[in-house]
């Protein structure tokens, strides 16, 4: 039966070792450089695909409610499953995991479990009866060398973006658990205290030459390998050295020092990718909620305050009190607009972030109409001219904005002009307040 495994030639073996004598690696890297790391998240929460050079690993996290172990009644469980697909390497056989697969699963499991990276007690729902059991599946898609590191990063990325359903305990005896649908209640992230990063070293030539992140060919000719799992705080979570060349303890200490530097670097990469992903997801959520979503609330605040303030100045009959009242009402009115949104946690987060979505649907001032253009129109002109200018600006706005938005901004614009008209001749506090309510009602009516 043909053995399709790749075999190194004598030439490659000698050349790789010879090149390493002069600190050169075959792919042009320096001895302590990692390959390019790329993390891509799937559509569902808790799935990540990692590319480390040519090595590709996919991680997928799922959770299930189970009975806890008898000796740990208030802790959840975490299990790692690896699948070495034959498409990754002709040497992988389908079926039972081989030695390498089991070793990989064990190393990653030890790094996460022993260091208590994932908080297990927060996974407890009803002590002794129901806990969440996490299952991490790691699929090796392409073996380009250094599977342990890549698979570890995939597991961490998947765990960081995984969301478990929220569940409440109720019922007469306080034992009934209702698991909420993710559409009804937002699922919750896991509590991850730190990220243990695995860094693999390969030894060559009597154990005095070592490189980080070996490629497939380097792994075939190396003398031995060691994996150190370290987090960015410098805590050593696990070390694995299974057979191979013997190395001196000073070399091991040096490796650990190098590993902690690399771990900090990789941790920051993972964290930034995870953050990008969660903000994109939050953005998507925000877009889905109906039209009244302000994306940049603070800007319309200023625009409205100042523009209405400017308009107030224009009208000779206004007094300071009215101005302040209208400004105060602006605030109030914006607050009122915010009310339907406070229920949604993610939108609040959106408002504080610097992400800029499209122009808000309802605000006629969010696009096109700049303060300066309004101010120019505020030069000592009769109020009629002001109104005309404003209407022109607003009309400009209408043509610029999306067709779907036209109706709402139209109503908004109409409301504004009405309000401007009315605010110019305020008779009492009530009159000043009324137009805002009117406008709000108009908005609701149209949307």
């Amino acid at each position, binding site marked *: 039966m*043909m053995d399709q495994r790749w*075999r*190194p*030639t*004598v*030439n*490659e*073996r*000698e*050349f790789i070792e*010879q*090149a390493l004598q*002069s600190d*050169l*690696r*075959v*792919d*042009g890297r320096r001895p302590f450089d990692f390959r390019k790391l790329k993390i891509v998240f799937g559509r569902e929460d808790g799935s990540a695909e990692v590319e480390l050079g040519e090595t590709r690993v996919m991680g997928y996290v799922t959770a299930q409610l189970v009975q806890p172990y008898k000796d740990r009644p208030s802790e959840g469980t975490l299990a790692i499953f690896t699948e070495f697909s034959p498409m990754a390497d002709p040497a992988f056989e389908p079926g039972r995991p081989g030695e390498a697969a089991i070793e990989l699963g064990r190393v990653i499991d030890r790094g996460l479990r022993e260091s208590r990276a994932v908080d297990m007690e927060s996974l407890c729902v009803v002590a002794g009866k129901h806990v969440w059991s996490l299952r991490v599946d790691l699929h090796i898609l392409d073996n380009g060398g250094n599977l342990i590191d890549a698979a570890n990063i995939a597991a961490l990325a998947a765990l960081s973006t995984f969301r478990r359903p929220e569940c409440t305990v109720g019922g007469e005896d306080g034992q009934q658990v209702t698991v909420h649908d993710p559409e009804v209640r937002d699922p919750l992230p896991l509590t991850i205290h730190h990220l243990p990063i695995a860094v693999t070293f390969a030894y060559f030539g009597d154990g005095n030459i070592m490189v980080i992140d070996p490629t497939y060919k380097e792994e075939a000719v190396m003398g031995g390998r060691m994996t150190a799992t370290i987090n960015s705080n410098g805590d050593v979570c696990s070390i694995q050295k299974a057979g191979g060349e013997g190395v001196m303890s000073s070399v091991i200490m040096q490796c650990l020092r190098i590993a902690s530097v690399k771990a900090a670097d990789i941790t920051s990469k993972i964290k930034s990718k995870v953050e990008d992903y969660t903000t994109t997801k939050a953005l998507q959520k925000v877009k889905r909620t109906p039209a009244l979503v302000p994306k940049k609330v603070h800007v319309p605040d200023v625009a409205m305050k100042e523009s209405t303030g400017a308009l107030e100045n224009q009208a000779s009959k206004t007094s300071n009190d009215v101005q302040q009242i209208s400004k105060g009402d602006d605030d109030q009115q914006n607050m009122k607009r915010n009310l339907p949104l406070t229920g949604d946690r993610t939108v609040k987060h959106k408002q504080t972030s610097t992400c800029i979505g499209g122009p808000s649907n309802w605000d006629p001032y969010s696009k096109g109409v700049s303060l300066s253009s309004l101010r120019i129109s505020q030069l000592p002109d009769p109020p009629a001219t002001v109104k005309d200018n404003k209407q022109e600006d607003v009309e400009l706005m209408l043509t610029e904005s999306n067709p779907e938005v036209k109706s709402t901004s139209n109503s908004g614009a109409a409301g504004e002009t009405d309000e401007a008209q009315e605010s110019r001749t305020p008779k009492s506090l009530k009159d000043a307040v009324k137009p805002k309510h009117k406008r709000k009602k108009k908005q609701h009516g149209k949307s």
Partner: protein
Amino acid sequence: MESKKPPPSALVDNHVVPGDVILDLADMTNQTIKLGAGLRQDYDTIQATSAGRLRLSKPNKYWVESSQKRYIPSVEDTVLGIVVDTKPDNFLVDIKGPNFAFLPVLSFEGGTRRNIPKFEIGTLIYARVVKANSIMNPELSCMDASGKAAEFGQLKNGYMFDTSTGLSRMLLSSPTCPLLEALGKKLSFEIAVGLNGRVWVNAPSPSNVIVVSTAIIRSESYTQIQQKSMVENLLVKLS
């Protein structure tokens, strides 16, 4: 033979996929058209059976040039093989094909039973395919047709890497491809290209070997101009 030459297929030098009709024979009479790899006659039409570029060699030879990672052995190809086993009569050599190839122990210049070369497992051999069909294991030889060594045999030192079959053909094209020319102007190295998608590079310093091999691997899908500029950038970066 007609005085009018057959019109060449409109698809020459274009990409074709299996099933594309290259030529319609209905309107041609008394002409001989030679079909090479990847083409098949289907009643009145010539159809492509593999994906690649259609090539024409005047006046009437057509074939499809495709590039894969695997190699289908064909006679008179020069390939790079790796010895995987030694038998009394032949060496078993891996040439990236569906089967291992046999290299008879006597197929070397001046080879007799007394001076059989000793190749250990993992030796790199530059050889020529002598017999190849879909039924039997292919057979190699380390001699050319007249019995001389002609550079065949074991390759010592250096570094070997895999490429696609299309890239190896490009490296062997004449005139010399711009990639090798540009590299050769600045660096000194020697290179052996196997049509089975293997390339061996040797140079006095390891860094030269690494530069050449990285440049070749990267030029997988580059046009001629891109190759030249890529190599120039690479060399500028190093100096």
